[in-house]
């Protein structure tokens, strides 16, 4: 899937606006439950998904809105799902950590850290059996790399040469603990070698770098050359969830990373390419309005009836 530079920018903007407006809802007590903010990591989802087709699979995690939107999930049903509304893409049953769209190969989020990795391997296995060149991408945080499923997945993916791209968004904090405190080797990508899996470390705040690395990994996978682990070095602007007081890091560190904002960075790139500032400005206004409309749609939508909890336990 080739995307022009403006579409790429727009895709990042939508994610940025969604996260910003959801945080406002949360502050106004209009949001039920947790928000796991994706602010600051927009280049990761967009860079990876911009190289995927609808027939490719992604498996997301608890911080999944960026992935859903970058893979093409419709904004309004996505937003309504986040608020647990009946008009949500899962009828409001999934909520903030669970959305899916089989038609787009979005195989869901997860409330269990690390659980998506084996599922992604299974999707990759199915794609391999289908023989149609589809790939599967698993998004996970660096914290999940310390779960046993990480090693099991890399191992079987290498053993079976699965078309699997393991995308580690290393945002430095495993929930509320600095990742560096929990590992002897802070580069997640370094572990791939031991399993016989190709890997790359990428600047996760540079959408073009991510896109390029993803392109290489996808190409290898489609060519039957097996899995790749991409470690995208990035930063989670917010806490593990909204309201997390972030005592485990300094405000100075946050300011430093915000100065490396992936959205602003790509905007500067576009301006340097000669895109008119006015055009970008009107695009930004349009995206803000579109997201606001989706938020209004979600807020105005009804909750699913409680008795619907009894439905669809079995197919």
């Amino acid at each position, binding site marked *: 899937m080739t995307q022009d530079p403006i579409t790429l920018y727009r895709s990042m903007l939508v994610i940025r606006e969604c996260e910003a407006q959801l945080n406002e809802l949360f502050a106004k007590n209009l949001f039920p439950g947790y928000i796991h903010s994706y602010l600051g990591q927009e280049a990761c989802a967009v860079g990876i998904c911009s190289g995927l087709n609808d027939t490719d699979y992604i*498996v997301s995690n608890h911080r999944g809105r960026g992935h859903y939107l970058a893979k093409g999930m419709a904004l309004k049903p996505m937003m309504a799902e986040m608020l647990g509304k009946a008009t949500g893409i899962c009828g409001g*049953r999934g909520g903030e950590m669970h959305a899916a769209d089989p038609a787009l190969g979005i195989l*869901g989020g997860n409330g269990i850290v690390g659980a998506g990795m*084996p*599922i992604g391997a299974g999707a990759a296995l*199915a794609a391999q059996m289908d023989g149609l060149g589809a790939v599967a991408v698993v998004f996970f945080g660096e914290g999940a790399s310390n779960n046993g499923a990480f090693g099991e*997945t890399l191992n079987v993916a290498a053993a079976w040469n699965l078309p699997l791209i393991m995308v580690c968004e290393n945002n430095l904090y495993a929930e509320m603990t600095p990742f560096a405190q929990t590992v002897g080797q802070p580069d997640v990508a370094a572990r791939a070698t031991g399993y016989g899996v190709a890997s790359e470390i990428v600047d996760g705040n540079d959408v073009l770098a991510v896109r390029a690395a993803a392109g290489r990994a996808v190409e290898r996978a489609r060519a039957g050359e097996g899995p790749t682990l991409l470690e995208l070095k990035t930063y989670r602007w917010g806490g593990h969830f909204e309201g997390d007081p972030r005592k485990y890091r300094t405000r100075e560190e946050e300011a430093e990373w915000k100065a490396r904002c992936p959205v602003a960075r790509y905007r500067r790139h576009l301006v340097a390419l000669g895109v008119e500032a006015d055009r970008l400005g009107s695009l930004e206004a349009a995206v803000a309005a579109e997201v606001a409309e989706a938020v209004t749609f979600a807020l105005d939508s009804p909750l699913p009836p409680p008795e619907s909890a009894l439905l669809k336990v079995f197919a």
Partner: protein
Amino acid sequence: MPTKTYCWAIIDAMREEMARDDKVFLMGEDVAAAGGAFGASRGLLDAFGPIRVRDTPISEEIIVGMGVGAAMAGRRPIVEIMFIDFLGLCLDQIANQAAKSHYIYDGMFKMPLVIRTSSAVEMGIGPHHSQAWEALVGHIPGLKVVMPSTPRDAKGLLKSAIRDDNPVIFIEHIAMHRIKEEIEDDEDFLIPIGKADVKRAGSDVSVVASGLMVARALAAAERLAGDGISVEVIDPRTISPLDFDTISASVSKTSRCLVVSSSHKNFGFGSEVAAEIGERCFFDLDQPVRRLSPPFTPAPFGRQFDQFLNPDTDAIVAAVRDLMA
């Protein structure tokens, strides 16, 4: 009708279903080249090749998790977890992923995943290879749990499980692998999941027995018949969803019920049956519902322990006599 062993009934079921639907594939530890740790997948690698019959690493979470992912991506995986005792290693994939994906995603995904696993209750293999965990998985909504006690049931139920669009835990029992039974020679021979079977009709006492205990209940019934006590033996075959209609109809008829299980009494299969009977059949009961189960202890290594811990035919006979006293 051809006579088949329990083990070959399982192999036949998989072979027939894999031939019928190329979306079906099998993976697990030692299932391909070795033909299964207990020989329950012999010949399948030759028949269907290494793409559809796969030996996995010893990575239970991956075995089930890949099954979940492949099912979401349109395949119909059969995965094998060698012993039911190993389910703890993959319980998240079973309980949170397989069991809930259809539900969470509002029915957008089907989960046609069969998790075959074996119980080795009373085989004397020690505390990590001797457990009856059907009640553990029976507690999780979204899962079907099947536990056949005869070759014919094993085949018909496994074929139904493979055709089912829901995750099914299919519990085999190693000790029953060699028992034989005539089975219909029909590729569409199915036994419905969720339907109990009255293995022997009777009028005095209903004995609900599962898995390994079914044969003992039948032996006990035969002995008791000599004393003029008519025992009805019901094999639920499916642990979840449990066929309470058949069980309660029997108990309402006999007014006495004994539940025999390898599952521990505490929070166990017998407790579930007894509680439901209490609710449904209270005014039909002439005696309290009795449970026969192993005591609430692990099983040490050695058959003498297993035989001591598990209900035997004598215990069933004695319990039935108590109910008739």
